[in-house]
């Protein structure tokens, strides 16, 4: 048998994953071929180095405790949603209007929030759920615990978005967007992570409702912030605030609903997709300090457990860009 054929068997031979007949063939060949003996020795060395490299690399890697917290949160939301669906008998979305239901009970942080959540429930279906990935949650934790970020909004603010910088998750760089607490609480639908300088922990109530279809409407004046977080190095690499004194011509409830319908009508998305965040795209021009007229919105989606980002042109009534990645 020639060397080429034998060499295809050498790895199986070393690993003792070869039949008796082929084993004999290899042994006979090796007895008379110095090149193949050298080859099998090289393969053995490669295997040994590979095991050593894996052991070394894996020894220094361990998951953050935040991973289990993220799983627990998502399972609890799922259980609540399932329970809500079971309890709903009047109509498919009847439970959405029942604020006494566990889904809403856990979501209600206070009477002030109740009003907008009911509006949300009526205007947008299906309900959105709070789903941060483990990395996004880590980016939030790093940002909200950093003194420079806390100082941006005088220690008060809401995380309204977390996006990987530069379209590349592998760099571990995420932008955490911060909005003035009073603006988002008062004017948008759902909030995510409140933080303040006295109590940095994430409030359970706000977390259980989580980020949903945030639309930043009306008077946006105040100090907004953005932090670039290096998740791998556990640090904030840059943070800055943006003073906004505009009354923005922003998204209305109807526009959020419209954007939701447009993306869900797209065959790549479907009606089962969860809408997580609807916000204006390029709404604020940092250079001129003005809001732009175009009605293009970002819609963040969860499709079958995966996160997607769609750009929707409300004027054209079209989803013109869906970041599905990879292909």
């Amino acid at each position, binding site marked *: 048998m020639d060397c080429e054929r034998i060499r295809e068997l050498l*790895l199986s031979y070393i*690993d003792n*994953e070869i039949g008796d007949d082929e084993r004999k063939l290899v042994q006979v060949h090796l007895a008379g071929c110095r090149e193949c003996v050298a080859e099998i020795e*090289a393969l053995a060395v*490669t*295997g040994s*180095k*590979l*095991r*050593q*490299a*894996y052991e*070394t*690399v894996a020894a*220094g*890697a*361990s*998951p*953050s405790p935040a*991973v*289990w917290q*993220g*799983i*627990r949160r998502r*399972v*609890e939301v*799922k*259980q609540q949603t399932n329970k809500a669906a079971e309890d709903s008998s009047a109509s498919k979305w009847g439970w959405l209007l029942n604020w006494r239901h566990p889904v809403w009970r856990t979501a209600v942080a206070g009477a002030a929030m109740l009003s907008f959540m009911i509006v949300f429930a009526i205007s947008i279906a299906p309900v959105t759920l709070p789903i941060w*990935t*483990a*990395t996004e949650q*880590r980016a939030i934790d790093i940002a909200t615990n950093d003194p420079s970020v806390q100082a941006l909004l005088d220690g008060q603010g809401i995380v309204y978005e977390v*996006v*990987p*910088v*530069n*379209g*590349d*998750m*592998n760099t*571990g*760089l995420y932008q955490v967007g911060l909005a003035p607490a009073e603006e988002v609480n008062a004017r948008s639908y759902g909030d995510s992570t409140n933080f303040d300088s006295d109590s940095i922990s994430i409030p359970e109530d706000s977390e259980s409702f989580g980020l949903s279809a945030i639309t930043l409407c009306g008077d946006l004046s105040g100090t907004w912030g*953005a932090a*670039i977080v*290096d998740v*791998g190095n556990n640090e904030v690499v840059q943070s800055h605030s943006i003073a906004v004194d505009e009354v923005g011509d922003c998204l209305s409830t109807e526009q959020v609903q419209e954007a939701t319908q447009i993306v869900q009508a797209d065959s790549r998305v479907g009606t089962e997709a969860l809408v997580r965040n609807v916000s204006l795209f*390029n709404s*604020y*021009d*940092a*250079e001129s300090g003005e809001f732009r007229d175009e009605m293009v919105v970002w819609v963040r989606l969860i499709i079958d*457990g*995966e*996160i*997607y*980002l769609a750009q929707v042109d409300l004027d054209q009534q079209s989803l013109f860009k869906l*970041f*599905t*990645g990879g*292909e």
Partner: protein
Amino acid sequence: MELKDLEKIFQQHKDTVFKTAYLIVGSVQEAEDILQEVFLKVYKSASGFDPQKGSMRTWLHRITVNQCISEKRKRRELSYSSEEMEERGVELADKSNELPEDMAIKTEEVANLWHAIKSMDVKQRAVLTLRYFEGLSYSEIARTLDVPLGTVKSRLNVAIKNLRRLMLGG
């Protein structure tokens, strides 16, 4: 499945799943996301686990590898481009291509090998991890990946060949 049951399984297997994912995808953040997704899948499809067909470990390996492959396909998703970030008034920090976790690897030879592994196709990395880190037999790998035994053999051969080529700088 109750949450406490899921937590028990998570605590038992989290390190194995995380390390396997990390060695396949090469990024701590990505591996944590995969760890989360794997156990959410376990929660959703607990009834899909049949002890007669294989161990919990094999089942978890299968979900993990599939999730790694799926994640790699979708990694370009959902983000802003640098231009878009600039339009949003964000200055991007200058970053080296080296991942933070790489910096902890002191041994040059190990670092070189790890660098070479990470440049390989995700399916090849999966088969190498299952064989040389997890120590699975060829038939166990075949069951995990749901491929014929011959495919495991050829994939391992190609992967080792590629690895040696990369190590030689070819």
